[in-house]
C-alpha cells in the first residue's frame, strides 16, 4: 500500500505542476497553488518536527546521562533563549531586539568563527592524509597549492597573469568537472524519478 501511495502522490503533484507550467488556466493555477502551499506547509512542519526531535533527543541525553551533557545543555539553553526572547509577552517575534541581539552578537560571530576554524582543521586534515600516504590526498594537496598560488592577491603584471589563470582554472577544468557532476546527478535524478513514476523498485530487477 505504502509503495503505491507515495509514487501516486509524486506523479499527481508533479504532473499537475508541470501542466500548470505549460497551460494557462485559472482553475489549474488555483489547484497547483494548493499543491505548492501544501508542500510549504509540509516543509515547515518537517522543520518544526526536526527541531522538536533535536530538543527531545538532547533532553533524553541529559535525563539518561549519556552523550555530551555540556553540548546538550548548550543546545537546550540556546533554543530556550531564542524562544523566550521572541515569544515572551510584548515581544515582536523574530524582529524583537533581544532576538536580533542573540543573532548579531552570538549566532553570526560564533558561526563565522566555527567556519573560520575550518582553515586550520582542513590544513591539519591534509597533513594527516599526506602522512598516511593517501594518493588522493596528495593529488588534492597539489591542486590546492596550485589554486592557492593563483589566488594570491598580487597586483601588477604578475597579478594580471595569476588573475587570468585563476579565471581559466575556474571556468575550464574546475567548471567542467563540476558541471559533469551536476549533469550526472541530474541524469540519476531523472532515472530515479522515472522508476518511481513507473513503480519500478529494486525487487523488479
Amino acid at each position, binding site marked *: 500500500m505504502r509503495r503505491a501511495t507515495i509514487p501516486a502522490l509524486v506523479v499527481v503533484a508533479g504532473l499537475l505542476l508541470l501542466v500548470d507550467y505549460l497551460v494557462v488556466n485559472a482553475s489549474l493555477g488555483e489547484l497547483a497553488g494548493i499543491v*505548492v502551499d501544501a508542500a510549504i506547509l509540509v516543509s515547515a512542519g518537517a522543520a518544526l518536527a526536526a527541531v522538536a526531535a533535536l530538543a527531545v533527543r538532547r533532553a533524553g541525553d541529559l535525563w539518561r546521562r549519556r552523550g555530551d551533557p555540556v553540548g546538550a545543555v548548550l543546545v537546550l539553553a540556546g533554543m530556550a533563549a531564542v524562544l523566550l526572547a521572541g515569544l515572551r509577552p510584548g515581544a515582536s517575534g*523574530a524582529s524583537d531586539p533581544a532576538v536580533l541581539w542573540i*543573532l*548579531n552578537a552570538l549566532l553570526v560571530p560564533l*558561526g563565522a568563527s566555527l*567556519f573560520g576554524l575550518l582553515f586550520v582543521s582542513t590544513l591539519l586534515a591534509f597533513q594527516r592524509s599526506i602522512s598516511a*600516504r593517501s594518493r588522493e590526498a596528495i593529488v588534492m594537496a597539489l591542486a590546492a597549492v596550485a589554486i592557492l598560488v593563483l589566488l594570491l592577491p598580487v597586483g601588477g603584471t604578475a597579478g594580471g597573469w595569476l588573475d587570468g589563470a585563476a579565471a581559466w582554472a575556474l571556468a575550464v577544468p574546475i567548471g567542467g568537472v563540476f558541471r559533469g557532476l551536476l549533469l550526472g546527478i541530474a541524469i540519476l535524478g531523472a532515472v530515479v524519478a522515472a522508476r518511481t513514476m513507473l513503480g519500478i523498485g529494486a525487487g523488479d530487477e
Partner: protein
Amino acid sequence: MSDRLLAIRLAPLLLLLLLAVAWLAPSVGWLRLASSNTTEADRMTQALDALPPRSTVVVGFDPDLGTYAEIRPTVRALLADLLYRQASLAIVSVTPEGRALALAELDRLQRGTVNARRILDLGFVPGAEAALVRLTRAGLPIEADGALAGVLATDGLAGAQAIVVVGGNDLGPRAWVEQVLPRVPGLPLLAVAPTILLPELRPYLATGQVDALLGTPRDGAAYRATLDVERLDRFLEPREPSRTGVAVGLVVAIGVLLAALVRRGGRSDAARTPPGPRTEAA
C-alpha cells in the same frame, strides 16, 4: 611533552596570532585584491544603470554562515548602491540561515537610519524551491502597509523591476533561475554568490539568464573599488578586507601543504633506498 608535540599544539594559536597581526598591519602597495579584469564588475554596474528610477527590487537573501564572510562586503556594497539609486528593497529568505543573516543585515540598515519606506521585510517563507514558486503567484500574504507592500501584495514578484539574489550553499541563484524566471519572465536577475557556486552559475551568466554576477572575492573587490555612494557609505563594510591578511593566510596554507608534501616525499625516498654496507654488516 616533546618539543615537536608542543610545537604542533601551539601551531594553530601561533597561526591565529600571525593572521591577527597581518590583519592589523598596513597593506603593502603591491598587493591587490580587486581583479584586473573588470568585466563582471562593469556588467553589474551596467545592469544597475539599466534599472528604472525608483525601482522595486526583490532581494532573495539566502547566504549561509560558512560562506557569508566571503561575500559580505560585496553584499553590503550592493545594497548601499541600490539604496543610493533610490531603489526600494523587499527582502525575503527561504532558508533558515538566510533569514538569520537577513535579520542581522536589516538590523544594521535600521541602525544606519535607512529610509524605512524603502525597505520591506517579506520575512521567511519555508519550503525552499516551493517557497520560490509561491512568491511568483499574485496575492502574497504581506502584513505591512505602504506602496511597496501594496505593489508586491497585488502582483507578486511581477510587481518588481529586478531580482537580486544573495546566494549560499543551501540555495542560490540557480534555484531562482529555475523556479522564478520561467514564471515571471523578463525580470533582470543580479546575483552575489560565493566562489563555490561559480561553476554552476557560469552557464546561466553566458546565456543571459543571470544578468550580472559577482561570484569571486576579486570581482566583488573590483565592483566595490568603483563604487561611490556618497553619504550612504555608512551602509558599507567599515573596512575593506586586509590584503596583507589574505596574502599571509594563503602563503601559510601553501607553506603547510608544501612542507607536508616534501616530508612525505623524503620518507618515500628513504623507504626506497636500498640498505647500505653498514646495514648489511649489521
